[in-house]
C-alpha cells in the first residue's frame, strides 16, 4: 500500500515538473536567440564537497535561471583520475548537452572527451590548458604568470635568499605543474640567491599528507625558508607542520587556498598570503562559452564572458584566459568569496 502511494507521488511530481518545464521553455524562448531550455550541463570538479568547487554552483544557478536549461553536479569523493573518468563516461551515457570539467589528470580523460565530442557534447575544461579534445579550456589567468606572481611574493617574504619547496596536489595536475615551473623559472631569472631544495612534493590534495611531507622537508632541509602550496589544502597542511615546529617566523608559507581552510593560519602568521580565483566567475565564463558555441559562434579575444575578471578574455588556440586572481592576507580576509561560516 505504502509503496503504491509513493509511486503515485513520484508520478505526480514528475508530471508537475514536466509541466513547469514547459512553462519555463516558453519564457526562455523569448529571451534567447537559440533555445537553451533543453540544455543540460553537468559540472564535474576534481572532487566533491570542498568550498572551492561548490562555489561553481551559484554561477550555474544564475545562468540556468537567466537562460533556461538545467544542470547537475557529479564527481569523485577523492581527487582520483580513474573515478573522475567514470563520472565523465556517465555524463556521456546520459547524453548531456555540455560537460564542464576540472580534470585531475587531463591525459586520463582525453579519450572520453573525444567520445563526448563525437556524440555532439560540448566539453569545456578548467585548469587543463593542454587538453586536446575539448571545445575550450577556461583559465583564470596564464599559469606561468600566476607562478611568477607567487615567486615575487615569496622572494619578498624571504628577503630574496634561501631555499624554498613547492607542494603540488599531484604531478599529473597540469596547472599545478605550470605554476610551479613558472615560479621556478621566475626565481632563476630574478633571484640568484634563492634555490629549490627538492623535487616538487605531492600532497594528493590531502591535508594529512601535506602536513607529513612538510615535516619531512623541515627535517631534511634545515635551510628551507619558504613553501609554495599549489592545491587548496597544501598551505594549511604545511602551516600546521610549521606551527607545531614553532617556525612561523622562519619559514614563509604562501599558496592557493581559501579563508575557510587557511584562515586560522593567516591569523596565527603561519601562512603569510594566499591567492585564489573565484570559481563562480570561471563557471560563469564556461557557461557563456557554452552558449556562444550553442549559438554557432566561437569565442574571440576581447569577448566579455560575463564573469568578473573575464570582461576581456585572451584566446590562445583552445584556451581562454582571464585576468582573475585575488591575493588574501590576514588584513583583507573578508574579501574571500568562499567564506561560508
Amino acid at each position, binding site marked *: 500500500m505504502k509503496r503504491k502511494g509513493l509511486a503515485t507521488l513520484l508520478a505526480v511530481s514528475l508530471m508537475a515538473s514536466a509541466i513547469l518545464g514547459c512553462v519555463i521553455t516558453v519564457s526562455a524562448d523569448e529571451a534567447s536567440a537559440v533555445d537553451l531550455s533543453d540544455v543540460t550541463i553537468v559540472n564535474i570538479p576534481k*572532487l*566533491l*564537497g*570542498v*568550498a572551492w568547487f*561548490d562555489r561553481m554552483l551559484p554561477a550555474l544557478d544564475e545562468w540556468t535561471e537567466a537562460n533556461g536549461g538545467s544542470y547537475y553536479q557529479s564527481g569523485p*569523493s*577523492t581527487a582520483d583520475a580513474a573515478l573522475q573518468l567514470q563520472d565523465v563516461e556517465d555524463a556521456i551515457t546520459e547524453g548531456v548537452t555540455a560537460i564542464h570539467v576540472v580534470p585531475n589528470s587531463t591525459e586520463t580523460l582525453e579519450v572520453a572527451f573525444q567520445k563526448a565530442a563525437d556524440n555532439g557534447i560540448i566539453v569545456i575544461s578548467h585548469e587543463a590548458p593542454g587538453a586536446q579534445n575539448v571545445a575550450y579550456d577556461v583559465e583564470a589567468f596564464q599559469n606561468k604568470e600566476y607562478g611568477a606572481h607567487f615567486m615575487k611574493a615569496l622572494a619578498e617574504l624571504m628577503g630574496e635568499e634561501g631555499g624554498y619547496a613547492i607542494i603540488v596536489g599531484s*604531478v599529473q595536475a597540469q596547472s599545478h605543474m605550470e605554476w610551479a615551473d613558472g615560479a621556478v623559472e621566475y626565481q632563476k631569472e630574478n633571484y640568484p640567491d634563492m634555490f629549490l631544495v*627538492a*623535487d*616538487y*612534493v*605531492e600532497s594528493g590534495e*590531502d*591535508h*594529512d599528507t601535506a*602536513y*607529513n*611531507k612538510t*615535516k*619531512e*622537508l*623541515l*627535517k*631534511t632541509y*634545515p635551510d628551507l625558508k619558504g613553501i609554495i602550496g599549489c592545491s587548496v589544502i597544501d598551505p594549511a597542511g604545511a602551516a*600546521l607542520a610549521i606551527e*607545531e*615546529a*614553532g*617556525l612561523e617566523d*622562519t619559514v614563509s608559507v604562501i599558496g592557493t587556498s581559501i579563508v*575557510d*581552510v587557511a*584562515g*586560522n593560519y593567516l591569523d596565527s602568521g603561519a601562512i603569510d598570503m594566499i591567492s585564489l580565483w573565484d570559481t563562480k566567475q570561471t563557471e560563469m565564463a564556461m557557461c557563456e562559452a557554452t552558449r556562444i558555441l550553442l549559438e554557432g559562434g566561437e569565442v574571440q579575444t576581447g569577448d566579455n564572458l560575463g564573469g568578473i575578471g573575464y570582461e576581456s578574455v585572451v584566446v590562445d588556440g583552445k584556451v581562454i584566459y582571464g585576468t582573475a586572481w585575488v591575493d588574501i592576507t590576514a588584513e583583507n580576509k573578508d574579501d574571500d568569496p568562499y567564506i*561560508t*561560516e
Partner: protein
Amino acid sequence: MNLKQITKTSEFFLLTVILAIFVVFCFVNPAFFSLGNLFDIAKSMVETGILAMGCLVVLVSGGLDLSFMAVAVFAMHSVSLFFGRNYNGAPLPLLILCAIVVGTLVGLINSFFIAKLGLPSFIVTLGTSNVISGLCLAFIGSKQYNKIPASMLAFSKWNIISVENAAGGKSNLHGSVIILAAVIVLTTFLLRKTMLGRSIYCVGGNPVSAARVGLNRTKILLFVYCFMGGIAGLVGILHVSFQRMSNPYDLVGNELNVIAAVVIGGPRVGGGYGNTAGTILGVLLITMINNSLVMLRIPTFWQKAVVGMIIIIGTAAQILRYRRSQTA
C-alpha cells in the same frame, strides 16, 4: 620463552627486517635517526596503529572489515559537528566516549548481518562502508568543519616531550602515543588473557570445533565488529584533533594501508592466527616507509613504486622464511 626461541619467531624476523631498512634509511639521510623523526614516526603510527588493533581482532575471528574508515569518519564528523555547534566547551573524554558509542552502534549493524544472518564479512562491510559514507555526506555534512570543540584543539597541542632541534624549531612527541599504547595493552590483554579473546581465536581458526565445544559464535562475532566500530570511533576523534578540522572526505580509501600493515604483521586471512606484537611491527614498517620518501630524496615520480617494492620485499622475505620453517 628463552632467547633462542624468541629469535625464531616471525615477529623477531620482522623486527630484523625493519631494523635493516632503518639502518639503510639512516645512511641515506642521517636526519632519519634524529629524535624529531622518531617522534614523528611515533605520532604517525597512532591512527594506523589503533585501527590495526581492531583489524587484527577481526582478522583473528576469520573475517575482514572494510568499513572502519567510513565508521571513523561518520563518528568523527557527527560528534565534531554536534558538539562544535551546540557545546563547544565539551571535555575531550566526553567527545571520545560519544564517538566510541557512535562507532560501536554502527559496528552493531555490521554484527547483525555478519554474526546474526551469517553473511560474508567482506561483502557486508563493503556495503556498509558505502552506506555509512553516503549517509554521513547526506545527513551530517559534506563540508570541511573548522570550529571543532576547543578541547580537541588543546589536545592537538598536547606534547609530552618537546625539545629544541638543530633547525631552531621544536621536535614534539605527541601525547596520543599514550592512547596508542593503552589500546595495544588492552587488545593484548583481551586476546591473550580473557576467555573471550581465546574464543575469538577458536572461532576464527576452527569454527567447527568451536561450535562442538559450545562457543556461541554469534555472540563472539557480535563483540568483534562492535569492538572494531568502537576503535574506529576513537580514531575519528584523534584524526580531527590532529588535523584541527573535520573533513568528511578524509580517511576513506586508506583502508588497505591498515589491512596491509596487519597482514604483514603475521595474520593469515582465514583466521585464528596473529598477535599484537606482530601487528604493531607491521604498522611500524608501513609508517616508516610512507613517511620517508621525501627524506630519502626519492624523485616524486618514483615514490609510489618504491613503497610498493619495499612492501613486497618485506612481506616476501617473511613469508618465504615461514614456508621454509614449515617444511624443515
